[in-house]
């Protein structure tokens, strides 16, 4: 019997729980907790002159009202800037409660605690905040004019400015190469704002145990370990007295890696002050105006290329709208800048970005994190070149692809982790070949012509990307085999529904040679594992997966050693199958792992049958040695950390066929094909699920979602009524093909897969719509109304 589960399409073990209402999400906990609610700014920019709470004091069930003035020193400060960067010369973060200024609609000003959420909101409605409205800065282009300031001490609203350049092989810069190139193009590309929009918003539930002087906090977060450290620091508690648990998390997509959120420190603080559990569950309106957005960027592209479409020089200037604050640093524009070259060998490359403040919700990474913008830029550029030269779009790409024998390939840039951006492995030409075959690229022109003869407009589009995944610095895993033969795996990294309980169990079961059912996995619980970074950047499988594998290898080695003693065999002759350690090729000579676990602990009280049975194997411990030898530990457990030298680079290529209605300008995706390479697959079904979900979000970004701010900084579509996330009815069937180019960087040879699906979708759809319409598509998302406008501008007689 084989116990090799790695690579198999094992059903997700968490699904029966999550899909039948048995999940325990944040708001399912703490039925007895008091409820917090917040008075939030209705203005995009205003001075806060006074807060009058007198009317609210009569609300029955009111427990407490807190303003900035009530906060202790540590909490009154602006919240931490998590990821500083030398280029972020003017980083700014908000205070948990506004002191004298609010800089976006939704910024918290007052916290109310009451018996339940209804009463808390009633009290909020009665609190009068005296605001002096100030002119709002909306949109990056208004911001960069610097006529009005979001932060008085940030001139020109520019928080960060960074230039990176990579010279060509001939040593020339991008400007020079472009000037010397046989062909040149220059254009502008825009992407609008969207947001992570997990179906479960943020939430915090805190319990202060006065007897034990300890704090337990549940947070719907992508990083419980860091929230814990932030809380200890902000609340002045010893770290061992704080535990943070991420319960079932109903999606995160990036927004929950930001921490600590104002509510995440205020709610535990209130629980300590009040000596009572307090809970806050974010509602949808709060999620729209008080969490984070992403994507909005303006790109000015200049490119020079030869007759085959080979890029000789590329120069991109990016204007990044960062919203009101920069708590997560400038990760997003850095990723756009560095992932823009994609699978291509560019001549010279220069990229510059300015990150500007506006009176809108702050920007932190959303699945893809700057890559959808990067790929939109690069792939629109490839299409432009093809159109200019009259070449097939895939031919231009093929001419630029990095070849399989060029790995490791150094792009000459510094990646988000501060390390050199070196692609570890990949096979891009094969990926392109597979994609063309899957979508039927070469036969499409005929299909398109036939459709046109029948009055239908079809178009095909393509988009390619390379994604740095599995960023460090580290992740850890702990594995313990108990005397009942169960395998307990934990990692500090959290889960937000990706299937970690299954994938990590597959890895452990394969490494240890035990049946999957014996393995249980706990994630994101600081009681079980204290050191972790978090789940984001397509890093969980790479980082925790490898760490767990390393921990398992330690346990396995110890198990073999102990079993070898018991079986009087050489450890090298032993293997583990189905939970039994046995001498390879000698039937009968075996000892169960459960017994080995008993033997691993010299304190052998016979609490269970297994322990009693184990005594038959236990030789007398030599009287001249301590029962636990030096360098040994009791028990059958191990801990492993995986810390990569640098990121590993996954890649993929997508293609779509769309139909545009010649009269109504509706855009329909007829087919969507994905070729995806994330190295060795732990579980192909989970990877495909990740791709499907990613494509669905990508379709949202391409055709439906935008944050519509008016000139006063009011978000006009802050609900699911008007912020159009695609339904199942809008998401096409996704056809996938996998390529497996193992990563040479980690023991399991895997690369990340979490963000892949979303990254190229806007580029692909733009490419396809352009092909159907023959009109350049330079802005995404695109709605029927906008396509109609483009047709009118292009003189289409049917769009009048």
């Amino acid at each position: 019997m084989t116990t090799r589960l790695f690579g198999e399409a094992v059903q997700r073990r968490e699904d029966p729980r999550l899909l039948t209402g048995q999940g325990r999400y944040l708001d399912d906990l703490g039925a007895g907790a008091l409820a917090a609610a917040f008075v939030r700014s209705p203005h995009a920019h205003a001075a806060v002159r006074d807060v009058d709470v007198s009317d609210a004091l009569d609300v029955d069930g009111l427990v407490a009202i807190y303003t900035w003035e009530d906060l202790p020193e540590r909490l009154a400060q602006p919240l931490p800037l998590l990821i500083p960067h030398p280029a972020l010369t003017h980083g700014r973060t908000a205070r948990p409660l506004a002191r004298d200024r609010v800089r976006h609609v939704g910024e918290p000003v007052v916290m109310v605690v009451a018996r339940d959420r209804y009463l808390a909101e009633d009290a909020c409605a009665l609190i009068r905040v005296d605001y002096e409205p100030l002119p709002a800065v909306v949109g990056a282009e208004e911001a960069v004019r610097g006529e009005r300031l979001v932060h008085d001490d940030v001139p020109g609203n520019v928080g960060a400015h960074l230039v990176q350049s990579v010279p060509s092989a001939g040593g020339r810069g991008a400007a020079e190469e472009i000037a010397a190139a046989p062909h040149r193009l220059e254009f502008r590309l825009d992407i609008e704002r969207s947001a992570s929009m997990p179906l479960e918003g943020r939430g915090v539930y805190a319990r202060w145990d006065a007897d034990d002087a300890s704090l337990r906090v549940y947070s719907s977060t992508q990083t419980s370990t860091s929230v814990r450290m932030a809380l200890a620091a902000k609340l002045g508690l010893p770290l061992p007295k704080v535990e943070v648990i991420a319960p079932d998390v109903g999606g995160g997509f990036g927004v929950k890696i930001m921490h600590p959120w104002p509510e995440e420190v205020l709610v535990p603080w209130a629980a300590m002050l009040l000596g009572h559990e307090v809970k806050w569950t974010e509602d949808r309106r709060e999620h729209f105006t008080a969490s984070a957005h992403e994507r909005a960027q303006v790109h000015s592209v200049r490119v020079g290329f030869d007759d085959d479409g080979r890029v000789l020089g590329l120069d991109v200037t990016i204007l990044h709208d960062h919203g009101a604050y920069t708590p997560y640093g400038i990760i997003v524009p850095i990723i756009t800048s560095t992932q823009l070259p994609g699978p291509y060998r560019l001549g010279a490359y220069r990229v510059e970005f300015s990150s500007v403040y506006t009176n809108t919700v702050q920007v932190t990474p959303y699945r893809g994190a700057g890559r959808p913008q990067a790929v939109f830029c690069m792939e629109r550029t490839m299409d432009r070149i093809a159109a200019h030269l009259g070449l097939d779009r895939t031919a231009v790409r093929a001419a630029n692809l990095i070849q399989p024998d060029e790995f490791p390939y150094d792009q000459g840039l510094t990646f988000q982790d501060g390390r050199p951006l070196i692609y570890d492995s990949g096979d891009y030409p094969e990926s392109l070949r597979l994609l063309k075959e899957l979508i039927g690229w070469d036969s499409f022109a005929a299909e398109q012509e036939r459709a046109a003869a029948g009055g239908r407009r079809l178009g095909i589009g393509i988009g390619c990307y390379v994604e740095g995944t599995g960023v460090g610095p580290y992740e850890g895993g702990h594995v313990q085999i108990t005397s009942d033969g169960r395998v307990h795996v934990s990692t500090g990294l959290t889960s937000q529904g990706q299937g970690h309980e299954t994938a990590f169990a597959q890895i452990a079961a394969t490494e240890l040679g035990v049946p999957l059912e014996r393995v249980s996995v706990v994630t994101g619980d600081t009681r079980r594992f204290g050191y972790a970074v978090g789940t984001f950047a397509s890093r969980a499988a790479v980082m925790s997966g490898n760490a767990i594998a390393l921990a398992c290898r330690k346990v396995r080695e110890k198990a073999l050693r102990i079993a070898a003693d018991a079986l009087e065999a050489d450890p090298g002759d032993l293997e583990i199958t189905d939970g039994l350690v046995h001498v390879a090729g000698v039937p009968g000579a075996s000892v169960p792992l459960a017994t080995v676990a008993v033997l691993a602990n010299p304190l052998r009280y016979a609490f269970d049958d297994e322990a009693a049975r184990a005594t038959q194997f236990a030789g007398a411990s030599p009287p001249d040695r301590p029962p636990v030898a030096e360098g040994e530990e009791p028990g059958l457990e191990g801990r492993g950390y995986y810390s990569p030298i640098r990121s590993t680079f996954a890649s993929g290529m997508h293609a779509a066929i769309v139909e545009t209605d010649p009269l109504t300008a509706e855009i329909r995706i007829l087919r969507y094909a994905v070729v995806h390479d994330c190295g060795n697959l732990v579980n192909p079904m989970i990877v495909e699920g990740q791709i499907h979900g990613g494509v669905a979000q990508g379709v949202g970004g391409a055709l439906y979602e935008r944050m519509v701010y008016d000139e006063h900084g009011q978000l006009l579509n802050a609900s699911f009524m008007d912020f159009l996330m695609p339904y199942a009815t809008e998401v096409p069937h996704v056809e996938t093909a996998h390529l497996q180019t193992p990563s040479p960087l980690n023991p399991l040879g895997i690369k990340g897969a979490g963000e892949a699906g979303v990254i190229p979708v806007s580029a692909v759809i733009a490419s396809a719509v352009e092909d159907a319409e023959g009109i350049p598509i330079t802005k995404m998302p695109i709605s029927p109304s906008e396509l109609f406008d483009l047709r009118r501008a292009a003189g289409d007689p049917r769009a009048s």
Partner: protein
Amino acid sequence: MKPPPFGYHAPRTLGEALDVLAGTGEHGKVLAGGQSLIPLMNMRLAAPAHLVDINRLGGLAAVETGPDGVRVGALARHAQVERSAGAAAVQPLLRQALRLVAHPVIRNRGTAVGSLVHADPAAELPAVLALLGGSVRLARRGGTRDVAAGEFFTGPLESALRPGELAVSAFFPALPARSGTAFREVSRRHGDYALAGVAALVRLDGDLRVAEARAACVSAGPVPVVVDVTAACGAAPAGAADWEAAARAVRERIEPEDDIHATAHYRRHLTGVLAAQALREAARAAVEDAAGNAGNAGNAGNAGNTAGRAMGHGAGDAAENTAGRAMGRGAGDVVGRDGGTAGQEGAHG
């Protein structure tokens, strides 16, 4: 997103409901399916002091079909009306429109009458009522009145309903002989309120020429906009009518607005496109209807079981009930009837 405090009343009889409504006056709001009202309250955009929940008034759930039309009770859910074969047989436009209203779960709770009273100019049913010249029956303590569609919709989210009144039913006139209907719309996502939508009705004369053609447009102005395009499309045979001219006439009449999903210009264009499509489809249905009526009367029973448009217009049915239908049709025919009797209330309570 929690509503402010409100009083809650759950009357068990129509009389009790009307008493509560009379007592609460402008501070009272009827709660039917709650699919529009509850979100407004949760967003604190509506803050009625009293909710009068009519969900226990089972007598209001009836969908009554007769030769002259369909009377839909205040508690009849969208889904119930959508699935009613009888209603579809008498007036196929109801089912055609209801399939475009939101999603099944919302149609399972939301009521047709609630949708009319809510009077959203983007909603389908107000356009249907306006196109067909239907009416809404309003009851208050001591009286009932019928208000014609033309007077019922007074503005965006505004109707002729007065404080203290309960809409007990709505009446959708039957499809005239040799007629067909269609509903076409474009929404951003499946089930969303439409960016533009057109309900069309075409009636043919004995020579199968267009005798009457009308279109009602959603999201095209503050209230549903009904455009009579009979003249524009010419009294031509159904197959040769100038539906593009009709579309132009529609475009000229409507007053769509810009919003975050579409420009007014696009909406105007789109409404024209949809008007031409809906009118053409309605004309086709009318031709089939006429052919069905002229042809095999024995098929009348089967026709009612067929999903889709133009069901159940057996020859005998049409011939016998022409007079009845004529009475229920046309906005001008149904005038306000103030001072209805307790007997009328009893019939629907």
